């Protein structure tokens, strides 16, 4: 398939279709409207179903129903809408239903603004809804990667019976870049024998449920979920290292911010500062090991985010006090500039 120049939101939608997703339930909110708009055009062409729900709350519960019925299903929204979906996401996690949720993050809290942000990191990686659960959270930093991650997200969701989130910022949603759709490496995905499809007596009766009123049973379910999260940590943690072989300073950044950091690292190297980047591609599970290892090599870390400092907490946990971990954040919907990051690197080097 030839490369196509596509907007991030549209590439995300097309990737879902290519991955066999035939059900999409959404609700308008900027800056992700191109996802439902694209789906509304495309789904009828592939005998799929696009439905605009009456609210984000309804949309995520339609996802629950379709996922429970055994289908590949997706919804997308932006920060305030994702907050509304949290109840449903928590139920989906407990009912062990596979689905993909896209968050094109805008600024917050509250209605905030519609410009890019990474302020939903805590919400995405630390729960978001109530209870002990985790989403698998993939954070693309290019349109190609967004497409690749969406396609793999469905496989990951099916494999572990767990919701997967695509965490992109407004930049990923709005930007156009060349993209090609590749099927992800083949996985052994178990058949959905648990799905509610109408019961003919040849299997166990399907009960899609998140209510476990007896503590003994709830404990078993909780243990099962936690074991699965451990398995996901082992198998699905993804990280990219850039010029880390001889790095003395390490930038931690994900998504669009990591691209800006690359420009900064290249400038720094021209000035003789040996900098590199560790970019988590999965922000949950967080690639702690990569940071832990780097802590023995580098002199210091600089975490760069479009937030007041959220991922930096995970970086500090991983580095565990071995080396200083500084933070540089921009908020309001602005992107950090390569020069501003470079300046912070110089400060880190000079121990300021």
């Amino acid at each position, binding site marked *: 398939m030839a490369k196509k*120049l596509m907007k991030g939101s549209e590439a995300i939608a097309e990737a879902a279709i290519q991955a066999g997703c035939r059900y999409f339930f959404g609700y308008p909110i900027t800056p992700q409207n191109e996802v439902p708009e694209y789906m509304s055009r495309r789904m009828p062409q592939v005998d799929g179903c696009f439905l605009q729900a009456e609210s984000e709350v309804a949309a995520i519960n339609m996802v629950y129903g379709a996922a429970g019925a055994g289908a590949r299903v997706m919804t997308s929204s932006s920060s305030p809408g994702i907050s509304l979906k949290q109840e449903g996401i928590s139920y989906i996690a407990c009912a062990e239903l596979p689905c993909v949720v896209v968050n094109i993050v805008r600024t917050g809290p509250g209605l905030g603004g519609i410009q890019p942000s990474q302020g939903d990191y805590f919400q995405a990686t630390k729960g978001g809804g109530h209870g002990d659960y985790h989403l698998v959270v993939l954070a693309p930093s290019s349109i190609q990667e967004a497409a690749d991650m969406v396609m793999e997200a469905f496989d990951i969701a099916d494999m572990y019976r767990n919701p997967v989130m695509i965490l992109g910022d*407004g930049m990923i949603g*709005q*930007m156009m*870049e*060349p993209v090609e759709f590749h099927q992800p490496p083949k996985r052994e995905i178990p058949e959905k024998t648990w799905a509610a499809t109408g019961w003919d007596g040849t299997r166990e009766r399907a009960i899609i449920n998140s209510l476990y009123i007896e503590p003994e049973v709830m404990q078993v379910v909780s243990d099962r979920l936690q074991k699965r999260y451990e398995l996901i940590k082992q198998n699905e943690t993804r990280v990219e290292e850039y010029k880390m072989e001889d790095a003395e300073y390490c930038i931690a950044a994900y998504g669009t911010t990591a691209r800006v950091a690359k420009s900064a690292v290249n400038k720094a190297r021209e000035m003789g500062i040996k900098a590199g980047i560790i970019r988590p591609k999965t922000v949950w599970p967080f690639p702690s090991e990569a940071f832990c290892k780097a802590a023995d090599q580098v002199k210091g870390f600089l975490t760069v985010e479009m937030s007041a400092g959220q991922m930096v907490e995970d970086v500090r946990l991983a580095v565990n006090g071995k080396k200083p971990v500084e933070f540089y954040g921009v908020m309001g919907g602005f992107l950090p*500039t390569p020069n501003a990051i470079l300046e912070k690197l110089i400060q880190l080097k000079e121990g300021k």
Partner: protein
Amino acid sequence: MLHQMISAGFGGQGVLLLGQLLAYSGMNEGKNVSWLPSYGPEMRGGTANCTVIISDEEIGSPVVVDADCVVAMNRPSLDKYENNVAPGGKLFINSSLIDQKAKRTDIEVYYIPCNEIADQLGNSRVANIVMLGAYLKKTGVVKPETLIKCLEEKLGKKKAHLIPMNEEALKKGAECVD
């Protein structure tokens, strides 16, 4: 090779398309490209802009601060982006709608009467293509043939009859800066 540009003007002047055509062409010539539109608050006052990066290397920051080139299709765009041209860079001004001269002296400035030329060609909507003609002539960032091919793909069979006029617009724009 790393080429970073900003295209700005009124909504409806085709500045986003101008950028997209550059990005498409760059992609078809085997380069890495990115196209980033402004959205939201920056749209107030009816101005639209996008940034395009064409590069041999993987593209880092998609945001352009020091542009190699800026295209200003209207007065507010010139006011806003003149200072974003890197020293030694190029500034393309649509002189049909902008009656003032550039203030900078450390850059190359070209004045192209895009709307007048487009009107002479019989379609005011190709003003952006006239501008592209001048742009390609001076930057050589992509070949005009590649761009015409992209335009053919974008317009499709139904609007294929518009291609000759667009070719003419590219040529006239190029002649302007000869």
